[in-house]
């Protein structure tokens, strides 16, 4: 029964670009999107954290989504953005992406679930499924997955 309901569900995603790949983040997790700003490096932390920023008096850690997904760094450009997400645990987190493109609406039938049973490697774990939008594919980010370690 629950599954049936899920099938009809329509979700909105913010589409971010990392190089030529597109990633979708469920819009219900997104708090804000800010331009690149001065990031303070935090020595000896996990390599995919580029540091912390000050967002209206609150200090928020910023993760490079590229590094988290085992991709190489890219140069900061005019289009670089930090997507501030608010996972269920409450505290804010910034995700550094190359570019934020648009908001897309995907119904459940547009999304192909990624199964973890065989060959569950990290990159898959951070992605819940792949959505088809027009002619492009969008990897949907598992927000709770990327903060779990």
């Amino acid at each position, binding site marked *: 029964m629950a599954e049936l309901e899920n099938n009809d569900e329509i979700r909105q995603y913010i589409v971010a670009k990392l190089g030529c790949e597109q990633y979708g983040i469920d819009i219900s997790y997104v708090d804000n999107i800010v331009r690149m700003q*001065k990031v*303070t*490096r*935090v*020595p*000896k*932390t*996990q390599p995919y*954290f580029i*540091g*912390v*920023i*000050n967002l209206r*008096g*609150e*200090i*928020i*850690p910023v*993760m490079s989504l590229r590094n988290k997904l085992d991709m190489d760094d890219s140069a900061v450009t005019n289009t670089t953005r930090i997507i501030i997400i608010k996972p269920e*645990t409450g*505290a*804010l*987190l910034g995700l550094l992406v190359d570019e934020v493109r648009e908001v897309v609406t995907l119904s459940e039938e547009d999304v192909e679930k990624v199964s973890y049973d065989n060959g569950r490697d990290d990159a898959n774990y951070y992605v819940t499924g792949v959505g088809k939008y027009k002619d492009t594919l969008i990897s949907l980010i598992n927000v709770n997955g990327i*903060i779990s370690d």
Partner: protein
Amino acid sequence: MDLSQYLEIFIDETKEHLQTLNDQVLIMEQDPDNTDTVNEIFRAAHSLKGMAGTMGFKRMQRLTHDLENVFSEIRNGKMSVTPDIVDVVFKSLDALENYLANIQESADEGTEDNEEIINLLNAIMDGGVRQPDIPDELDETVPIATAAPAEAVPAADGVDKRKFLQLPVAEFEINAMTEAVANGMNVYGATVYIQESCILKAARAFLVFKGIESVGEVIKSEPSVQDIEDERFDFDFSLFIISDKPIEQVQKVIANVSEIEEVVIEPYTPGSAVTQVATPVVEEKIETPVVEETKSEASKESAPEKKKTNDTKKKPVVNRSVRVDIEKLDDLMNLVSELIIAKNGLVSANAYEEHGQAQQFNEQIEYLERITTNLHESVMKVRMVPIESVVNRFPRMIRDLSKKLNKEMELIMTGEETELDRTVIDEIGDPLMHMLRNAADHGLEPTLDRIKKGKPQVGTIRLNAYQDGNNVTIEVSDDGGGVDVEKVKASAIRKGAISEEQAEMMSDKEAIDLLFQPAFSTAEKVSDVSGRGVGLDVVKSKIEGLGGDVVVSTVLGEGTTFTVRLPLTLAIIQALMVEIQDEKYAIPLNSIVGIEDIMVDEVKLVQNKEVINLRGTVIPLVRLDQMLDLEPSESDSESLVVVVVKKGDKQAGLVIDNLIGQQEIVIKPLGKYIYIHKMFSGATILGDGEVALIIDANTLV
């Protein structure tokens, strides 16, 4: 029944009374003839009983009642204080504390009857002379809900108890009543008398109102509901009630509330007030309210007076304090933080200004700075609580330990007035208690051994607190046998914590630090006081979690001292801002000893580590750029800027590139998810909005 709004007051006051009892009984044990003490005890026990009864905690009330009987005997000189009695009394106090703990948790006293203690108390009573005054004590405790039947009331004892008849009734109220009657409802007038022994009369009145709500509606009360809630009334109040229920039912509802002396109630017809008032002339009717008003004002005036005498009787020494919700203080604190950040912004903006108009600008900034500093200090002070509130339970604990361990000992406390931040106070109780238990159990030798060694028979434990700059130091010391380093090492080897070679290499100080390892206890037998091996490690981690540290010094045969150092405040600190390459960091000022310019060729190598000789002391050098994973910079400068920091009596020199200056910083948490190395104690936001990490110098020494 909704008593929740009184529960908090009840809990606070009960705590106060229990603390008074504990303190005073301790004094009484030492000085049984002190009548002031005995009176004080009696008063506290009596108030406690009344309060427990009022709140409907029957078991608690019963126990305090029996306890009070014993105190009453002692007060009347019919019984003398013996150690046995004191033991039972303390047991009862513990039982009461348990009730309180239950109440705090679930608003219910629990089901423990403590028959055993009550029997002990009664046995004491039987042992003493059966006193004649017990029966009327009993009368007082059992809540009497005698409601005189309505018929018997009018002018029975000369005074008309139907005070409601004298209430001024406004036009709209009469209208409401007439309308109610037209709708087939009844209008009743009632005057409720509360027992004069009642302590929480507002609570009683509240229950009356609550009860009436279930059968009808109160359309008017005198004094007003607000005044009644604030306890601004004597022992009676009058009401007009609209109800569709018969008068007996309404009366019963009111009379069912305990500690109600009497309920006078009868049907009321709107016109009757006018006829009852002396003059039926219509013109004077206008005047009547005025007269009544002055009258009620007069009674209002006398009410606080009466209350005052009550208060002085109940508590001779009242702590003049305001209870403030900690959340409100936190909000205030955040505002101050914002203000400081804004000020810092102004300061840095000013740095780029031209010299021309800078003068006035500077003055303004200085002014702002003065305000923020003052504001910060006063907010900090609001949060400060004397450690007395934590340590005042320790004398009692030591007394119990003394009995349990069969060692003679005394606790001497000094500096109880030393103040600490509320958040620290809340956390420091358990560690201190643990250290005291440790001193009592492991520190002090058994009495016989002490006599053999020629030491005073009674062991001494000291708790000494004092402020030391931006820190508060608490020392817990004993004059016992001290820590036997060899024994500690042997025990550590046995437990596999260290190898024998390691043990030989170890300095005494390092060996003593083993005490803080998890699962370490040197006591040969495990007692229920301490020695289960959980403890000192928890103490240490707790204190470090509060930003403090703990060190042990010991002299074999003479005693041990634990010294705890805690920061005075946690949220805003003075820090030195430094630059390492192009990154900015803050170093808390309280760990800094000084800043030195060291020539590069003065740096020596000892065991392959860089050290400098600073006025005769050799201190290790820490290259911060390496610690912070920065690429070493090729500097051709001939000198190094070294910030000398200390932890306890150890020092280290931190090499930095540039000094920025001293600044007041607001400590902010670094957020979740990200791993923070322990060398950082947090972060702060600088005037230009940039984030700087705070280096915890303690971890680098």
